[in-house]
């Protein structure tokens, strides 16, 4: 933990998404459109982690992620934690849980799905299968895909 503090600057106020699996940090930045904000963002990639071996970390100043945003993180980074920081102090720690539905973030693998049109945001619901695997069902074309197919 001490090492991370040295490598990625602390923030005074905002959200820290920690324990992101390495190689996923950049993906989260673009998928969750964190780059579209004017807020200052610091990102650390391939940092040492006791829990994961290597991890990515994202710090967004003066922004507190919504519950929906936090839970959507669970799709890509199930072990992630979101820390709320105020005056350099930890004031909240949240563990994302998989949401029932995920909007905007994913792209439907069905190339003939209307959600590929520009003015539309994608929308998927999670379906738990008998073998306990998770499928994602597109709310528009109603096709079901294994989680890996949609996330790849």
């Amino acid at each position, binding site marked *: 933990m001490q090492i991370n503090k040295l490598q990625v600057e602390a923030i005074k106020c905002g959200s820290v998404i920690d324990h992101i699996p390495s190689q996923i940090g950049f993906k989260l930045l673009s998928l969750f459109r964190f780059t579209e904000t004017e807020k200052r963002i610091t990102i650390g990639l391939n940092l040492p982690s006791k829990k994961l071996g290597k991890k990515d970390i994202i710090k967004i100043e003066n922004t507190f992620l919504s519950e929906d945003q936090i839970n959507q993180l669970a799709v890509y980074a199930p072990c992630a934690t979101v820390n709320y920081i105020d005056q350099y102090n930890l004031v909240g720690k949240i563990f994302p849980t998989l949401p029932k539905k995920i909007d905007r973030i994913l792209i439907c693998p*069905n190339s003939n799905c209307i959600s590929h049109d520009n003015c539309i945001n994608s929308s998927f619901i999670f379906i738990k299968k*008998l073998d306990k695997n998770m499928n994602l069902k*597109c709310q528009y074309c*109603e096709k079901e895909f294994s989680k890996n197919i949609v996330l790849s």
Partner: protein
Amino acid sequence: MRNSLYKKNIISINDLKRDELELVLKKSAILKKKPEPNLLKNKIIASCFFEASTRTRLSFETAIYRLGASIIGFSDGNNISLSKKGESLADTISVISSYVDAIIIRHPQEGSARLATEFSNSIPIFNAGDGSNQHPTQTLLDLFTIKETQYRLNNLNIAMVGDLKYGRTVHSLTQALAKYKKNKFFFISPDALTMPNYINDMLLEKKISWTRCQNIEEIISEIDILYMTRVQKERLESTEYANAKSKFILNTKTLKNARSNLKILHPLPRIDEIDYAVDYTPYAWYFKQAANGIYARQAILSLVLVEKHFK
């Protein structure tokens, strides 16, 4: 009886509960016996066919005229502002919804009807087929025909034959019949065109029996409904197609051991999967099935657009 379909969008058969299916079937039967030519008088309905589908369009239009409503629309997506001027589907629907009481949409892309509901300003949308996804009124007319011929929708043995992979009619019909008890399914298709896993999984989750069979003869004596579909030439290699189509041609010889109550259904068009001689047997019901499309569509249109129907 409460009409829970009033003002509802009809997008997918999965959106309809079993009692709503029953409501449509009941209304279809009433309208078949006793037409109500003024039920939708003064209503204007848009028929928006972004791709050609002659049977479905004419069936919907006939249903609309028989209920006394007026119709506007187009039958070919190539000649409208959307394609000529680049207007979005969302804008097209948004504008048309300000003219009419309901919109029927046929579109080549999956999910288009669902998208239309987001821009229709609460004007009901009827899905008349979205790509390979859903065609709920086809399923309603299939259910109506099955109930009319078998007097029930449970405890049936149903065989589905042909292109089970891409055929949306067989997917939707299986989903609808899975809402009823003790139905058994037999799936007969080329190896490349088997029923998709999500349908098989759904049956498994609901503990509904299904079997994959090699040919129609082995189950003909057990089944009540034989639902034939076209093996689509464009989906297969030429030799694979030749083998597949010759394997699943239904002729009078195949029907030798059929039950007396057996009915053969087909969403049409037929190519050569049913021999013309079968048309003259008492089992052939596909043309009567197509005719029932008028009543099922009359029923769903009137239930969505008029609140009170039953005393």
